[in-house]
């Protein structure tokens, strides 16, 4: 159904936007590199694809006059989600242009800010692109070449947003959010599940996003320890037998 499809696409856009922001924050710092620039480029392109797809879908849904009032309200809510994502995307693209220009990579001495970050952003980009591992195949002058593309893409996005404003008559302030304060503490994943019931922050038992991750890591390590112990035990037994035999 159109609505579910829409929500899935919006989720994807949302995810890519978040990752893109994370990557742009790393620009100009010590975790900056050729790879980062390539990651930015690819994430950006993906975001744009998703944006166009979302826009097409949503505008067609909203243009449909035959939909019910509740449906219309829902589509308007989705529209607000979409336009907010686009706003963030546009802002981040502009910022990445400015910072990218200020911190060129193909210079004899790179002047990158010592922010204390040492690792790379590969995993973030992989998350954005929904791949396991990123493969890097860009040329060495990506930082300058990409900037030109970036400028044109920013223009495209700006015009798209203006069109959206003109064509789609949705009053953003009229939309009522389904999520309550503190809803982020629930583990509900996507737009599809609207939160049920009012949950106040204080009483909330937050679902362990964090705890889940933590325990995952813990499990792996206990496994390793267990295996090690087993191997040591086997070695001891074998040694004992050898000694007995001899």
């Amino acid at each position: 159904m159109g609505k579910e499809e829409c929500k899935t696409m919006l989720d994807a856009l949302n995810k890519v936007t978040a990752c893109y922001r994370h990557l742009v924050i790393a620009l100009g710092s010590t975790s900056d590199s050729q790879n980062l620039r390539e990651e930015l480029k690819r994430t950006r392109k993906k975001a744009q694809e998703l944006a166009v797809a979302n826009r097409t879908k949503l505008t067609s849904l909203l243009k449909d006059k035959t939909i019910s009032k509740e449906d219309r309200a829902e589509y308007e809510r989705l529209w607000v989600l979409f336009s907010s994502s686009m706003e963030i995307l546009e802002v981040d693209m502009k910022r990445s242009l400015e910072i990218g220009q200020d911190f060129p990579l193909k210079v004899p001495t790179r002047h990158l800010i010592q922010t204390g970050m040492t690792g790379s952003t590969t995993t973030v980009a992989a998350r954005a692109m929904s791949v396991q591992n990123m493969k890097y195949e860009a040329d060495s002058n990506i930082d300058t070449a990409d900037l030109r593309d970036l400028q044109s893409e920013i223009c495209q996005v700006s015009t798209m947003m203006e069109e959206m404003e003109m064509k789609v008559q949705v009053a953003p302030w009229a939309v009522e959010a389904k999520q309550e304060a503190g809803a982020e503490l629930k583990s509900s994943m996507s737009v599809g599940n609207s939160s049920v019931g009012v949950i106040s922050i204080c009483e909330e038992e937050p679902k362990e996003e964090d705890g889940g991750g933590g325990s995952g890591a813990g499990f792996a390590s206990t496994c390793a320890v267990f295996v090690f112990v087993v191997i040591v035990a086997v070695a001891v037994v074998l040694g004992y037998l050898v000694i007995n035999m001899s």
Partner: protein
Amino acid sequence: SSGEDIVAWILLNSCSGFLSSEARSFGSMLVALGYIYPLQDHKRLVIKPDASLYRFQTPYFWPTQQWPVEDTDYAIYLAKRNIRKKGILELHEQEQYNRLHKWMNHKWDFIVMQAKEQYRAAKERKKPDRVVFDCQERAYWVVHRPPMIFTQQSIMRPRVKSSVSIGALVKYCATYNSHDPFLSKCLPSNPWLTDDVTYWTLNMPNVEIPTKMRVERWTFSFGELLSDPRGRDDFRLFLKKEFSGENLAFWEGCEDLKWGTAVTMREKAEQIYKTFLARGAPRWINIDGKTMEITVSGLRHPHRYVLDAAQTHIYMLMKKVSKHTRSDAQLEQNARNRRPSLSPIILRQQELEQRAKMAASAPVDITQLCRFTTPVSHLAVYSGFTDSPSANASPSLPFVAPTPVCPSPISVALDSNSASERRAEAGEGEAERNPEARAPAGGNVLKSRMALSLRRLLKRGCSPSTMFASLSPKGQAAAGTSRIQPLCPDQPSQAPPRRTGNFFQIKVDIPPECRIYPIESEDEEEENRASSRGGVGAKEIICPWESLTPQNGTG
């Protein structure tokens, strides 16, 4: 990650001429703007010149590009923090969160979604980088959404009821309505319309006889009187008679300091201290002990506003004494005496000359006056016109004390012109004239009427006592004057020749025969007086900061 002594680094890399204190403040500026953030004590955005650690902020969070700081982003940040802290936010964060939830409710779904995704994206990185990232973001928001420690206090800021503020506005409009050349006619004519510059001539800063409207304006508030140069001149003369001229001189000195160039500030402050504030100063002003303490300690590091407290004190003092208005005799003079206008350059020169003259002659002035002193029978007998050559009216003309508070201009404004004229005519018996809202309809007619009433008043003679009672500044003594001690009344006639005018302060609600003297021993003061009057003098007045500087060493 860099744990540097940023101050040393700045000193090393900065252009020559940076003192270490400057380097420190520069460093603190960097922190306050958000280019560097502290790792410990992250809420205090200063550089501490010890081994505490700082880190550079990533360019995305710099203020350089002046990207707008959006509430949406802040809401997302708070939601992320909420997830990380598992629902336990700091108080100010909690407040902001609730506030944003209320105001950005329509976007809240998006905010929650983004917060979750951003949180998950950040988790993809390795732990140390994640920590750095969190620190960066937190530092950014400390700069751009500083925690309000005392939110309650800020909410409970004093607020004025709109009825009160609107009432004040109405009163202001009504009072100044007739004085606004746009809203009402200006007499004799608006120069811009008729090309007749009489109006300007009559209202020049140093005109002999000020116009009635001008004088009326002085009654509106003390500030009006002081800001009009002519009014200030009159007030200066008045204070001279009261032997309180140093107050106005001090006030003017303070204004000069406030508005003067920075280069001259230090020497001006010194000058003012030597002339007015130091013990044994030639024109010692009387301010209460606490203010004096504050001022003197502030003068160690003089800046533009160091004398504000003392100036305010003196201003209030003068305000209490100041209420007077002109008699109508002046207005007749005004009609008769018209001077040709002088060019502004000459006016300015005259002003400066006069100022210089007064400054040079100030101490002498008072001593001369002293010879003629008689116990002031009433607090504010204004005999300013003895100096004015054109004053034909008797110098002892009483001057009307207006009510200390303007009668409600609304009611005054409602009075018709005819009513005010009638009042003027009938007013000969009254000691009090109503200076407000005399709509000058048909100036000559009114002037003749006033001449008539004036003559009647002269016939009756003056009975100033009732009028001047209201002039006495009330509660003056209560202003912490630890140095004042009223002497017994039986030596007023002898006292003046012995004591000089500097010790005459603004009188308080005490019987007119009493004088007020500072507590210091009379002999010591006399010596000081004599020596300081003799020019540089044997006893030099030392400014407190001068004596302290060698002790302080380098700053």
